């Protein structure tokens, strides 16, 4: 497996409060990785550290051969890492403006092509292209967030709880769309979730608990790991 993202010995936190201890996470090219953890485990903090939204105390982040530690968020984005936060949408901009901002660094022609492609994949967005992002329903916002994050044709899409606030039916739609996108474009995924439904698409899984990576392996290995089942799923080991 060719490595796309390699974050090692990540230590960070907020102010004096350390949240992550020596985290290590690797995402391969075209690989779908799920970062599983309960509320407060440090999933969002780890993603923010990767995107440069909070300073790294120590550790290294290498993406596609380049060190990202000293790069700004916009430079990391331009390297090919796109990030979809829990809401992922700029509420005051229209649907189309959100998509155009997503493809901000593409040339005009590529931006237009991507816009058409997104409208093809999400016809609802085309209908509502003049509506403000903030006026969409939760599911439509999530849809827009995914489309916006994919506008720049990233190599890696980092998603923070894409299932938050969505009905099970729409979670299924998001999963199906992500499978389709990754297969079509060799896109790699790093998804922070607490919804185990996303394990369906995972090639590998990390479990984050109390700021430390407590498990790393395949879904089958996860299911067979009694300690993880007890700690995360609250189940008794067989």
């Amino acid at each position: 497996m060719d490595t796309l993202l390699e974050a090692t010995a990540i230590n960070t936190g907020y102010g004096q409060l350390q949240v992550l201890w020596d985290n290590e996470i690797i995402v391969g090219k075209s690989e779908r990785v799920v970062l599983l953890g309960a509320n407060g485990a440090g999933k969002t903090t780890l993603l923010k550290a990767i995107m440069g939204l909070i300073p790294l105390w120590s550790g290294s982040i290498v993406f596609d051969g380049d060190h990202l530690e000293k790069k700004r968020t916009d430079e990391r984005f331009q390297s090919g890492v796109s990030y979809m936060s829990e809401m992922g949408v700029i509420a005051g901009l229209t649907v189309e403006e959100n998509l155009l901002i997503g493809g901000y660094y593409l040339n005009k022609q590529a931006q237009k092509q991507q816009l058409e492609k997104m409208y093809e994949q999400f016809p609802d967005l085309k209908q509502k292209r003049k509506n403000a992002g903030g006026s969409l329903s939760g599911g439509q916002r999530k849809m827009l967030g995914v489309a916006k994050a994919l506008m720049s044709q990233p190599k890696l899409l980092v998603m923070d709880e894409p299932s938050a606030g969505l009905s099970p039916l729409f979670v299924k739609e998001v999963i199906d769309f992500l499978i389709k996108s990754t297969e079509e474009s060799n896109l790699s995924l790093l998804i922070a979730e607490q919804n185990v439904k996303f394990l369906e698409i995972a090639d590998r899984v990390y479990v984050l608990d109390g700021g430390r990576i407590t498990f790393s392996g395949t879904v089958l290995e996860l299911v067979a790991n009694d300690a993880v089942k007890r700690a995360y799923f609250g189940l008794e080991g067989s």
Partner: protein
Amino acid sequence: MRKPLISGGIVFLIVLLFFAIMPSVYSNEDLFFQAMVYLALAQGVNILYGFTGYLPFGYVGFFGTGAYAASLCITLLHFPPVLGIIAGGLASVVLSILLSPLLRLSGAYFAIGSLAASQMVYYIVSNPSLQNITNGPYGINLESVYQPHTSYVTMIVILALVMGVVIYIRNSRFGLSLQAIREDPVSAGMAGVHVVRQRAIAWFLSALIAGLVGGAFAWHISVFYPTTVFDLNISIFAIVFTLFGGVTTVLGPVLGMFVLYGFYNLIGISEPQYFQLIYGILILLLVLFLPSGIVSIVKRRGHYVP
């Protein structure tokens, strides 16, 4: 893209033709000059507040700096007036670079910080110990280069440049990135927008506009005091005109200026007590029912406003 540019161009032409023709219809050139000054300043506020969300209560600081820098270049360095105006614009940009740490602030803190900065410049300029350079509180006299018609035409050119810049920003990726920053700087950064650089460009551009307008104003009125060009009402008028018409459009500040400044000139001088009352009620109604300005009536229905 073409349709927005055409509609923006129509507003541009109507406004400039109005100011070019009106002095020959109604012989009060000073009135139209002042209107152009406020319109250009309102557009400068539009760039800064409308597109980036920074409310510059101290915007008059750049205006006064431009007026003084232009005047000193004309009187002390014997620059031709137009070159003096350009120097005034550049001096305001230099001031904006010095004050760029203010961009770390947001909301009310930025508004108060910019106000304090403008007062600081005022006290430096009006300080009697600088009388050899700025003439301290006794003001500036540019009567030797007084050419009201030429300065009027120069102001039309400046207004054309300012409106051209706003039309460009309104319809460009740069403008879209500024709006994204205004709405959510973190999301904008995550979409690849260089937040600090884009904000700084808008800040410098806005300062340049105020500086150029200040320089033209100084040349046109030719005799003024520090209190004239650092008057806080200049900031307030520019901000209120912009908010009244509607931000992030080129048309909003035009409407705001024509309605409110027109109204001010109709009864503000002859009947100041009624003017203050009606002016207050108008602004109250706007804040309550049209917080996004007059243009929001059209925007709400999904129509494009240039």
